[in-house]
């Protein structure tokens, strides 16, 4: 069985094409069902976000499935094959696993280390689970990718630090005030930037938002747009500032509105309550010297941009550690995948034993025909004996590490039991029963229930 990934992402395709290949439009579950009916895959998971559309499938015939996936992508989304094909990438087996691990870790994202993609990977797997298209291989693969995502999040700083201006402002406010729950925010100026930041603060738990603008009507309109905010007239600015914790200034004024002296007057009755001023106006609304006042924390747009840049740089320096985790988990997953190389041998061995058992049982049939209970008992006991005999060899084969050893063991088993020729003979001779066996003998999942773990 092979792993195959076919897809497009923000790295290979423009947003216009990504929009057209968005599986969420027509439903990921429907895509999975359609995929399953095509018959070229054994298992499938569809990962569809605004930055990527990827098909993870398990299949037997790599080139045929690859071609079929391209056809499926274009047919299902109604996009011409020649349009899609140049933007597609496909990788197989461990390279596909590595790709998924990097995606789950946030290493393949537009903003490295962003956390949403991890949830999207989880959701993709859940949907596939509900649609019954994820089997043992993809389940194992996705669970391994969850482990990667979790480890990268806890063991590296890849996702730490705000990487947008408004996030940086909120993070700073948190470091000064702790919980933002009972805090109040004042936005000076009714512009778009101020509105955006205030809305962000509100979504982060700030309770009171007040808009102050030179024109009261503008202030009221902006307050309405934010929702749950109050508007105050320009003359009340000082008293509003005195009662607030966070101030966002974003007016179009050409000279500073808040001078150092004015803020000093505002600060006096506040005693020691900190005041966090975010000056996102250009030219600046707050005199830079105001930051000399004890308990006044003044950040302008450049300062915030600098912290964002520093955070991005820090994330970049964590990439190597995250990649090391990916490599480690890939090694583990690779071991498991290789051990699955023993499956055909195990299936053949079990089939061989089962055939012998059936042959012997059928020889006994005429003797036991009169006592059906005894027939059932013998059937059960012989079955149990085979299960027990094969348990240890199956477990051992499963725990083998590398491809070469698996090959050597498979070779030895094949020769010792004469598996190759006999199994083939049997399959030909007893097609119906072996078909039944094929369905039943899923060696690892079955043994697992009886194994120690």
């Amino acid at each position, binding site marked *: 069985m092979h792993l195959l990934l076919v897809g497009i992402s923000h790295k290979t395709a423009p947003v216009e094409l990504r929009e057209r290949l968005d599986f969420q439009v027509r439903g990921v579950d429907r895509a999975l069902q359609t995929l399953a009916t095509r018959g070229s895959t054994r298992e499938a998971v569809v990962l569809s976000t605004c930055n990527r559309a990827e098909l993870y499938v398990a299949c037997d015939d790599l080139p045929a499935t690859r071609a079929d996936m391209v056809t499926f992508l274009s047919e299902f989304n109604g996009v011409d094959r020649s349009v899609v094909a140049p933007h597609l990438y496909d990788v197989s087996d461990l390279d596909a696993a590595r790709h998924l691990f990097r995606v789950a870790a946030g290493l393949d994202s537009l903003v490295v280390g962003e956390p949403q993609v991890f949830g999207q990977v989880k959701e993709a797997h859940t949907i596939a689970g509900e649609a019954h298209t994820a089997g043992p291989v993809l389940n194992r693969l996705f669970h391994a990718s969850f482990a990667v995502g979790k480890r990268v999040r*806890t*063991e590296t*700083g890849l996702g*730490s*630090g705000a990487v947008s201006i408004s996030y940086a402002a909120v993070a*700073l406010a*948190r*470091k*000064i*005030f*702790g919980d933002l729950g009972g805090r109040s925010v004042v936005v000076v100026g009714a512009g778009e930037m101020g509105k955006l930041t205030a809305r962000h603060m509100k979504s982060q738990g700030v309770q009171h938002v007040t808009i102050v603008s030179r024109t009261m009507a503008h202030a009221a309109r902006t307050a309405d747009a934010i929702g749950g905010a109050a508007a105050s007239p320009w003359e009340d600015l000082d008293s509003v500032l005195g009662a607030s914790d966070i101030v966002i200034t974003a007016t179009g004024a050409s000279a500073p509105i808040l001078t150092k002296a004015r803020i000093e007057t505002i600060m006096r009755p*506040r*005693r*020691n309550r*900190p005041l966090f001023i975010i000056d996102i106006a250009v030219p600046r609304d707050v005199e830079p010297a105001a*930051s000399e006042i*004890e*308990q006044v*924390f003044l*950040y302008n747009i450049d*300062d915030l941009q*600098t*912290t964002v840049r*520093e955070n991005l740089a820090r994330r970049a320096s964590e990439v190597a550690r995250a990649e090391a985790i990916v490599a480690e988990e890939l090694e583990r997953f690779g071991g498991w995948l290789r051990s699955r190389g023993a499956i055909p041998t195990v299936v053949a061995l079990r089939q061989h034993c089962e055939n012998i058992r059936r042959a012997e049982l059928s020889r006994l049939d005429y003797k036991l025909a009169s006592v059906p209970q005894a027939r059932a008992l013998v059937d059960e006991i012989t079955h149990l004996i085979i299960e027990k005999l094969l348990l240890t060899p199956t477990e051992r084969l499963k725990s083998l590490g590398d491809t070469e050893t698996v090959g050597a063991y498979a070779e030895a088993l094949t020769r010792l039991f004469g598996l190759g020729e006999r199994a083939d003979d049997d399959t030909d001779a007893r097609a119906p029963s072996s078909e039944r066996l094929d369905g039943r003998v899923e060696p690892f999942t079955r043994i697992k229930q009886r194994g120690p773990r």
Partner: protein
Amino acid sequence: MNFVPLALYAVALVAYVWHFVNRDAAVGRGATTLLVFAALAHTFVIGMQTVQYGHVPVAGPTSAISTFVWLLALAYLYTEMTTDERAMGVFILPLLVALQLIPALHPGVEPQLPVLQSPLFGVHVSALLLAYASFALACVIGVTYVLLFKEIKAKHLGIFYARLPSLQVLDRMNQQAIVIGWLFLTVGMIVGAVWTPQARAYAPGIPQLQAMSLRDPKIFVALVCWTIYSFELFAARRIGWGGRRAAYLSAVGFAIVLLNFVPISYFVDNSHKF
């Protein structure tokens, strides 16, 4: 016997430093576990000494330091469990290790004069030791406050920004530690003042007791501490001296406590030695 807790404190220190540098949650939990074991071992040592000598080892300077280290470890563990903040450990543990070196290098417990068996003496010493442990915590919290304050003011968000709780939380923790410490300090000093005349009457032959007065360096410095912390409490409430000024005051206050505790106890001739 004080070597075992010392070794465990030292190992816990290494774990706390490791946790601080790498921010590895598992290492952090390991560090706390190590500190719990160190405190348990220390409890055992103090318990054994109590059984062996028939009194809690607090009378002499060395045993008082050992008990202080034990109390500080417990107070810190309490703070850590209630706030779920581990970053301060990297500042507390060096203090524990450095102070625990003294009892580890001066084995044994100083003999206790019969006059000190009064319950009032027990209250006096344990209240003061608890006060000092609170002040030590306040000092460390104050230092971290200043470090974080400077990073945010300077717009250079670095090591402490990523690891410490918010300024407001640190300020509140500092205030709480100061209030608790101040209460114990006040109780300890009042009990000491009440008990001295009683002890004088009980044991007239002890020269230190007769000579005890406000001019004694140890008592004088303790009064200075009380004044500083009283001012800090007053200033925080009345004139808005919270934040950085309170943090500096906590650091100065504890520096004086430490001065009183180690150099004055050992090197200055005073009437407070028994």
